[in-house]
């Protein structure tokens, strides 16, 4: 199965402000092997792929193709060397035909006039090789995601790809489509292509991979034949980390009946039959990999989306929020994961962002009373300890941690009983993280029901009183007390 190394990464390091995304990583892809790349969210898999694709330059280290050091200055260089990455977000042009997409950028032409016969012929041949039975003249927008993926593979073949990297190719496929994909992967492997297979589904990795590389926090933890490690050992390699946060214990046991209850909540295709209970004074962690449906659950709880099925109750009353504004009015606040996209209005000032949800309170007859608004905003940013507590700065000029505090301050002004935090500390430095943890705990101790979604296991373990795990849209476990370990959560998340 193994041949010559087609592609090697040696000591590849990639730094971003405040983070080392890749730290001296080695990777070797041989002809005729499937090399799986696994790791938690944020372990560095995507950055590694971007380096392979020439989309990102390493700060240190080198990339070798056929033993020769190369410097990819852009994706075109990587393609010319036969290295192709197929991203999870497919990159086809929907309104062009299959053949046009396959030849996009390398159209055969005679004195500037497209050689359409050659395109059709070559495309048909490539489609045959990947086993996709569609006409080269069909529009890509008519194809399913699985078929589009095959078109991307055909495109790679036409470009003589010798190394093909697939970024979570199964994430959007049905089980049957996954089987077909793996058949194609096997064929390509037999033809001598080197394949990089990025996934966090261990069962799939088992089915196709010859060798496995485990990444954790930007470092390569282990590389070896797939048969050398069982699932438990791989999970341990993925989660065993050095970062620890001080545990934030609850002041007392949760009190009273559930404040927010969801039963059999379903929104296809994101998640099915999810049941949750949030009590006052309690922090519930919602764990799972990216794409497991965590954010979607929170968005339904807060009225940003409607459920297909299932019931929600708030304080014992039926709860069917029609919009986030509606949920807010009943005391349920959602703190979105992507602050820049969903949380802040960057051009508005801190004051304006903080009071956005409750402006009505300061605007009798629709006219904003600036003095009252500013006093309330100052009190709110003091409560979240915004430093410096300037309320007239545009929100976009704040650091990530301060932006998150502004979003939290806005939620607090709503005087909410239920707080749903989605990745509350993403992009926040370590010191600010621990502080945000303390604040979230203080909010729960103050009698609120809190749900925290986080991809960072140490964060969940430090913060949550119990953890609910989602895997591919299904609830695969509820754990609390001593059973709450990183290994247990990860096992439920990848192979529940």
């Amino acid at each position, binding site marked *: 199965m193994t041949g010559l190394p087609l592609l090697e990464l040696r000591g590849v390091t990639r730094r971003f402000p405040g983070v080392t995304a890749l730290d001296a990583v080695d990777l070797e892809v041989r002809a005729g092997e499937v090399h799986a790349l696994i790791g938690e969210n944020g372990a560095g898999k995507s950055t590694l792929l971007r380096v392979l694709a020439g989309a990102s330059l390493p700060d240190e280290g080198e990339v070798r193709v056929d033993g020769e050091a190369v410097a990819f200055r852009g994706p075109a260089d990587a393609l010319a060397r036969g290295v192709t990455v197929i991203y999870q977000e497919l990159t086809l042009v929907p309104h062009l035909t299959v053949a046009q997409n396959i030849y996009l950028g390398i159209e055969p032409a005679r004195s500037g006039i497209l050689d359409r016969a050659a395109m059709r012929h070559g495309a048909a041949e490539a489609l045959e090789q990947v086993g996709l039975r569609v006409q080269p003249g069909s529009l890509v927008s008519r194809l399913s995601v699985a078929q589009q993926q095959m078109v991307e593979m055909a495109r790679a073949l036409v470009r003589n790809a010798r190394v093909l990297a697939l970024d979570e190719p199964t994430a959007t496929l049905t089980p049957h489509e996954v089987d077909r994909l793996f058949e194609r992967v096997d064929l390509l492997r037999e033809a001598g292509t080197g394949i990089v297979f990025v996934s966090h589904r261990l069962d799939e990795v088992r089915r196709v991979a010859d060798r496995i590389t485990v990444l954790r926090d930007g470092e390569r933890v282990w590389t070896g034949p797939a048969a050398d490690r069982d699932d438990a050992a791989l999970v341990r390699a993925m989660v065993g980390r050095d970062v620890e946060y001080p545990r934030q214990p609850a002041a007392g046991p949760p009190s009273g009946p559930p404040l927010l209850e969801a039963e059999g909540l379903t929104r296809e295709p994101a998640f099915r039959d999810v049941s949750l209970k949030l009590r006052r004074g309690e922090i519930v962690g919602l764990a799972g990999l990216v794409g497991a449906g965590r954010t979607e659950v929170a968005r339904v709880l*807060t009225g*940003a989306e409607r459920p297909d099925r299932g019931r929600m109750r708030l304080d014992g009353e039926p709860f069917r929020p029609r*919009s*986030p*504004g509606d949920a*807010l*009015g009943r005391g349920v606040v*959602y703190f*979105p994961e992507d602050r820049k*996209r*969903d*949380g*802040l*209005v*960057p*051009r*508005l000032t801190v004051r*304006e962002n903080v009071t*956005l*949800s409750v*402006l*009505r309170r300061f*605007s009798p007859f*629709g*006219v*904003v009373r*600036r003095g009252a608004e500013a006093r309330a905003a100052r009190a709110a940013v003091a409560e979240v300890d915004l430093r410096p507590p300037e309320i007239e700065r*545009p929100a*976009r*000029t704040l650091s990530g941690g301060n932006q998150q505090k502004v979003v939290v301050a*806005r939620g607090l002004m*709503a005087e909410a009983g239920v707080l749903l935090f989605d990745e509350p500390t993403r992009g926040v430095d370590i010191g600010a993280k621990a502080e945000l943890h303390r604040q979230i705990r203080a909010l729960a101790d103050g009698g609120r029901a809190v749900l925290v979604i986080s991809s960072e296991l140490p964060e969940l373990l430090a913060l949550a009183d119990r953890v609910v795990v989602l895997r591919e849209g299904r609830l695969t476990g509820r754990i609390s007390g001593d059973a709450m370990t990183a290994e247990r959560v990860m096992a439920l998340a990848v192979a529940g």
Partner: protein
Amino acid sequence: MSRSRSGWLERYGVGLALVALVLVASIGVPGFFSRGNLTTVLLHVSVNGILAVGMTFVIVTAGIDLSVGSIVGLAGVLVAATVTDAGLLSALGPGGATAVAVAVGVAVGAGVGLVNGAAVAYLGVNPFMVTLATMTMARGAARLFTGGVPIGFPPQSDPHFDLKVAGLDALHALGGGRLPVPGLPRGFPVPALVMLALVALGGFVLARTRFGRHVYAVGGNEEASRLAGVPVRRVKLGVYAISGACAGLAAVLMVGQLRSGGPDAGLLYELNAIAAAVIGGASLFGGLGTAWGALVGALLIGVLNNSLDLLGVQAFWQEISKGGIILAAVLFDVWTKRGSDAGG
């Protein structure tokens, strides 16, 4: 450092450009800097200024309203028909008919605006396409209603000649009237006063009311606003209704001034209004723009046209220079944004 400078320029740059242009014109253009001419400039600018204030509301939400010129045409012919309606005039008198005509103009404008807003907010249709459609439909409706001929001054043979002229005269007090002001021999034009009042009102609504805050929030980040509980759809409905109502009001003033409502009135006015709003600092990407800026933008175009007029420059050159100003404003916008967004 560079951020604060470009922020300052972003805010006051257009105002400075206007001041500079006025200075240059005062020195270099004979007859420009007189009280009479300056009030003429204000009068000429008033329709575009009013449209630009409404347009600014829409543009701040990252929308666009192409229908305002056609609304001026449609509302105008309906206003003219109302104020020359013999039955209405004999029942309510010229003053009463004028009041009804004003209401008709504003209501027609707001009505078309509500259609625009409903399609954008509730059906999720692209604003450019929605308002392109209503622009075409309103123009067609205006021509259909009039048979393509202006409605206005009656022929001598008209049995209600005196009555209709009285109606038009009453409306003319609004559109062509002048308030006596000491020091201004011909008085201050009413349309310019209406424009200034509307700028002040628009400025107040945008800067000081809950609705105004929501307009900036929706334009600055629609999804974040929705998640924060801002009634995004109602805000969008509102801004298009405001823009339409402004166009209706502009139509009333135009008909009053000309004593006639033509189906082709207001042709391409939407483009002048967009130009004024953008020159005045509104960003087509949303989140930025003020009513005062719209006024400054409209004045900048107006002063330029007036100066070139006085210098006897061909109209074609005026168009070319107006285009140049628009280009300069957009380049300025790109340039200051590049400076100020680097930190965010």
